[in-house]
């Protein structure tokens, strides 16, 4: 039997990081406030966890101006999508092996 723990990525262990990845898997891009609203987290929390994910090349953060308002949008990278898919598969395998 394959070891399911192998597929687990410790980058997604944190609940907020897990949340950010989850919503970016099903949306091409989301902006800061949209993610904040779904996850129900504070600004500082979201910003720091998102920055950590960007550092690991899991997500891409794009800052631009819409009119005069600054807007930060987030998207999962291909690497991030693949890693998260592995993470999901590992969680599912864990669940199947220890019901």
């Amino acid at each position, binding site marked *: 039997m394959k070891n399911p723990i192998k597929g687990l990525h410790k980058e997604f262990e944190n609940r907020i990081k*897990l*949340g950010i990845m*989850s*919503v970016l898997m*099903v949306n091409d891009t989301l902006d800061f406030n949209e993610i904040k609203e779904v*996850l129900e987290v504070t600004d500082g929390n979201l910003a720091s966890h998102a920055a950590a994910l960007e550092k690991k090349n899991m997500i891409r953060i794009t800052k631009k101006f819409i009119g005069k308002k600054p807007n930060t949008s987030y998207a999962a990278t291909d690497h991030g999508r693949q890693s998260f898919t592995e993470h999901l598969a590992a*969680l599912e395998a864990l669940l199947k092996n220890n019901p």
Partner: protein
Amino acid sequence: MRTAETDLQEIKKLMERSSRFISLSGLSGVFAGIYALIGAWVAHLQLLRIESSDSLLPLVITAVSVLTASIITAIFLTTRNARRKNQKIWDKLSQRLLWNLSIPLLAGGLFLLILIGQQQFELVVPIMLIFYGLGLINGSKYTLDDIRYLGYLEIILGLMATWFQGYGLIWWALGFGLLHIVYGTWMYWKHER
């Protein structure tokens, strides 16, 4: 405690909340079905009185009334449901749902207007059912997935209505009345109770 199971549940919930408009109320389907049945009965009485050369205005008024009442009820009940589920009623998700629902409906609506303009009435009911079904299937990616199957059923009814012509009003009452009531009740049972 966090386990693989709670993580997976959380992930699924977040994916759904961030990409689908989940506040669509099943009860609005039930009401739409009731209005449709009343509308079908009124149309039946109107058809008995209409001479072949008469205008279709009374029928159009009935149809528009059913549609308007259904939409108003749906907006009201879905707003109430959204408030309860803490979801916004007018945001990117609901707009995306409406847009995707509308594309087949608008295409079908224009198709119908052209046919009616050419005095071809045989296919009016099948076209309504089929395009409505396509709209539901197209929109189902952005809301509760259940409505996909309602879409399949509407298309099947539409094809049957094309095959067995001459019972237009009965097919219409089945598709827009009965199916809505049965399906709406089931969705209410599943998601809102």
